[in-house]
Structure formats: C-alpha cells, structure tokens
C-alpha cells in the first residue's frame, strides 16, 4: 500500500475527521438508502474493504494491532455490523416499495403460510450450530488465547484498557468525570433501552423491516448503537494507544507522543479570555455562564422542541413520555457535543464546580 494512502487514512482517523466521516457516512447511507443498498454497490464496497485489509495487512504497525488475538472479535464485529446494517436496510427499502405499490410486505406475504417446526426450523438451527461449532474449532486451533506475564500491582501497562466491549465507556472518561462516565451514562443507557417500548408509541413497523414507517426511531437507534457505541469500541481498540493518545492505524505506538493538555473550563473562557477579569471566588458566580447554558439546554430546549419540530410527537406521546424521551435524547446528544468541544476548542468543563462534584 502506497505511503500517501497510509498518511491519508491516518489523517482521516484523527478524532475530528473520524467523527465527521462516520456521521456523514451513516447519514448518507440512510438518505440514499435506495441506491447505496443495491446489491451491486454493497458487493463493490465489501470487495474494496476486503482489499484494504489485505493490502494494509503487511504494514507492521497495522498488522500488530489487527492480529492481537483479542482484537479478532472487533474485526468480526465490524464485518457483521456492516453486513447486517446493509441487509436490514435493503429489506426495508424493498418492503417500503411494496407498501407503496399497495402490496403486503415480504414478511406479510410469507406469514400467511405456517410450516412445521420439524423439519423447517429445526434443520436451520442444526445447520447454524454445526457451522458455528466448526468456526469455533478452527478459530480456537488457529489462534491461541492471550496470556501475558504474571499479574503485578507494581507495573501498570500503557495503555491499560478495559475489555473491548466497555471501551466506549472508557472513552467517556476522557470527557466526563468518573461518576458521570462510569455510573450515570451506563445507567441511562440501560434505562433508556428498557424505556424504548414504552416511549415508542408508533404502532407501525411491528414484525417487519421498514424505514419509512419509523424513520426517526431507526435513525436515532442507529446513531446511538453505531456511532456512539460500536464506533467508539472500534476507536478505543484500534486508535487509542499509549497514554490514551490518538494514533492512526498505520502509526507507530510511540509512548512519548506529546499531546498538549491545554483544556480549560468555560468559566475561564468567559471571565478571563472574553471579559479580561479574574475568576470570581464564589463558585456559583464563577460558573454562571455554564449553568445558564446547561439549564437552557435541559429546560428550555425541550419546551422549544415541543412547540416546534416535535409538536406532532408531543401530541402522540403525551407529556410524560415526551419529557422522559427528551431528557434521554439530550443526554445522548450531550456526549458527542462534549467530545467535539474538547477536540475543537479544548473545553474541559461547561460547568466546573469540583467542590460539589458538579463537573459537566
């Protein structure tokens, strides 16, 4: 693989381009789903991605991070997520076209007929089990499970990473205090997931693939699952190196890579940089700009949304459902906003009152 291509990919996987590109990609896939989910397009993209991995495999830095035994599942995750996202959107596009023509969905047509569990379902299950047993045996014989040196409290590895499925949460620790990143956000994720069936009052799209009958629900879930969870897992695995610094996939993991830590609070931006004064001693006065901003974000924005873009939603959902949903939505949106603010203007805290653990 030519060097300029490697440099280009390293540059594209820096935090800001990575976020912009993945967001644009998801938006494009959802908006141009009719063209982009065409089997020919999908096959071409799959071939290109495979070709990329084959070519990049020889690069020593890329090879080192890809062939780590515990990183193999992430490759499987990437492949399966891409495939199943395509499959579901393809089925949705076909179903939406059928609905427009006044025909029943693919599932609707098939569901008219019932078949015997034996043999139709039992054999599918049996073949799946056989294939997976074979896959697991080959994988287990080919790739040994990792064993590192004996545990020691005295030597901390650099980087120290949580198991891969928690890397999205570990990433949050960069932007939020531990009690928000490690306790509040995971609780919101679990509670938010459990609330989904009670918040989504749209009766359509139950039991078949569709996009047009529930565009907002599917888009929001894909943003949460693909951009804020899977994509952060991939970022934490492949792009976060020693000292939790960012490294491109072709970059050497240099533990001495210098990243200036110059992040400052909003209060300093306001009082010192904008007004040219000292920081006020009283924490409330000091943090008034951030408090006002957050207050407006969590209190005023839902009301404005209820009166404007989400008017219909409020009418369908009712007060209680709507405001619970808005609260979860705003927290979901706060995560990428905080990340981007950190990367662009080095913002540390919007509200920083360490005296009361109120750092957001």
């Amino acid at each position, binding site marked *: 693989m030519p060097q300029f291509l490697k440099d280009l990919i390293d540059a594209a996987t820096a935090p800001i381009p990575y976020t912009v590109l993945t967001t644009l990609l998801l938006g494009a896939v959802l908006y141009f789903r009719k063209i982009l989910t065409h089997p020919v397009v999908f096959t071409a993209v799959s071939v290109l991605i495979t070709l990329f991995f084959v070519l990049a495999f020889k690069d020593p830095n890329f090879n080192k991070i890809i062939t780590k035994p515990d990183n193999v599942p992430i490759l499987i995750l990437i492949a399966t997520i891409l495939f199943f996202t395509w499959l579901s959107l393809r089925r949705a596009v076909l179903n939406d076209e059928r609905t427009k023509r006044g025909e029943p969905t693919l599932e609707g047509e098939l569901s008219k007929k019932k078949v015997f569990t034996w043999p139709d379902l039992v054999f599918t299950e049996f073949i799946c089990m056989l294939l997976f047993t074979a896959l*697991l045996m080959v994988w287990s014989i080919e790739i040994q*499970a990792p064993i590192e040196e004996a*545990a020691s409290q005295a030597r901390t590895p650099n980087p120290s990473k949580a198991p891969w499925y928690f890397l999205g949460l570990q990433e949050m620790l960069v932007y939020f*205090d531990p009690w928000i990143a490690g306790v509040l956000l995971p609780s919101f994720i679990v509670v938010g997931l459990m609330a989904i069936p009670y918040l989504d009052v749209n009766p359509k799209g139950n039991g*078949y693939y569709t996009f047009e009958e529930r565009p907002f629900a599917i888009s929001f879930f894909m943003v949460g699952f693909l951009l804020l969870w899977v994509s952060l897992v991939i970022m934490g695995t492949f792009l976060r190196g020693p000292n939790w610094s960012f490294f491109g996939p072709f970059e050497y993991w240099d533990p001495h890579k210098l990243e200036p830590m110059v992040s400052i609070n909003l209060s300093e931006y306001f009082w010192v940089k904008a007004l040219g004064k000292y920081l006020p001693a009283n924490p409330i006065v000091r943090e008034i700009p951030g408090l006002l901003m957050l207050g407006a974000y969590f209190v005023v924005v839902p009301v404005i949304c209820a009166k404007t873009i989400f008017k219909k939603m409020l009418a369908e959902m009712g007060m209680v459902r709507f405001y619970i949903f808005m609260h979860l939505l705003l927290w979901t949106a706060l995560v990428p906003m905080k990340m981007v603010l950190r990367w662009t203007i080095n913002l540390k805290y919007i509200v920083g009152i360490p005296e009361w653990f109120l750092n957001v």
Partner: protein
Amino acid sequence: MDKILSYITGSQIWKSIFRHGYPDTPRNRTLAVLSNVVLHLHPVKVRRSGIRLSYTWCMGGLTFFLFLIETITGLLLMFYYRPTAELALQDIVALREHVPIGVMREVHRWSAHLMVITVWLHMYRVFLTGSYKPPREFNWNVGVILLVITLLLSFTGYLLPWDQLAVWAITVGTNMARATPFIGHEGPGAALVGFGGLQMVHAGDDVRFGLLAGRFVGEGALLRFYVLHCLGFPLVAASLMALHFWRVRKDGGISGPL
C-alpha cells in the same frame, strides 16, 4: 439391515423414549416437537416469515447456543483451574501445555467474545423489526437485562487468567465504582454519609471494596469474580433465559406482521 432397524425401533426401550415414528408425516412431526423437552421450546407450527435467516439472522438462537458451549467448556475448565493468586496463571498455562486437547480455553474465550457480538446483533435485529412493540415490551426488558448479564459474565471471566491483561482490564473497569454517588468513596455525596466526624464511606468500606473484597484487584477479587462467573451470573442468566423463551411463546412466537 431393515430387519435390525425395525427390531431396534420396535423394542420396548426405543418406544419408551420415542413415542412416535419418523417425523415425515404431519402427525409425527407434531409429536416430535411436542414430546421432546428441548424441541417443545418451539411451537408445532411457525410462520414462514419468522424462520427466514434473512429475517431473524439466527442471532438469538446462536446466543443461546454459545451460552451452552460456554457452560460445557466452562465446566471442563473448572476441573483444572484453581482460583488463587499463586495457582491461577500456572493452571491457565497448564491448560494449553499439559491438558489433552488443550483448546478448551480458546473455545471458551472466543465463544464468549462471539456471544457479546451475537447479543448485540440480536438486540439490533429486534429493534429494526420493531419486535419490542406491544405485546413484547416486557420481553424486550428481560432481553436488556440478559444483555447486561452477558457483559458481566464476560467481564468477570476476564479476570480469571490472572495475568497483566486480566488484572489491569478489571482495574480499569472497576475503578469507576469508586465514583458511585453516595456509596463510592470518590463519588459525589460520599462525604455526607457519616455521623459527626465519623466517615462511613471510605476506600476500605465502599461499593468498590465490596466488589473487589479489597482496596485493589487482589486475591479476594479473584475468588469473588470466580464465584460470580461460575455460579452467580450463570444461574441468573439461565433463569432469565427460561423467562425470555417462555415469553416469546406467550407473546405470540417469533414476531411477524400482525
């Protein structure tokens, strides 16, 4: 040959186990599902749409299958593994070096990783087909808890090899517990819990200490994680799975258009 076969299938022993003939008639196919404790998780007949691989992706079924693999390989591993700080790593190395067919740890580890992925994809599929909508709201909730338990199973198992990778991953993962509001010693509100000058929540007496049985990831944590991994979480997972599968049936089988 036919004679031997008919002798076997006609014997009292065979008939006491299988109460129907070869399942190639509607009657025998019905009986095959109804009279088998494993198969009767399924209804006798299913909607054609619900069993297409392109619809279900088989991810729920595979998750259950991987759970069974984890149970079997985990049981085999327990014969060789002693959860103490001196012996754990040594036993893990011995699993590869001295135990015949020494790939059980590999099968266990890779299946565990795979199970996390299949659970996520199962949730993804259930969301995209709107299968959480009424009447399946409650079962979606059971599923979310099962997802969390799958992650906890994997997380507790991550510590058991007792090497640098294991200990530091668990250190990173459990460090967040010290910031839990009120019950973690570095969390908001912890300073408020106490009488007069007596601090109730401190490094030796908070939720992280309870989780790790110590102030750092040491031998106490190893034993706790071992018990939770081998007994605690599997029991909870198995009970919830029973509920999950039962509710799939009660809520109308694999979802499909109403």
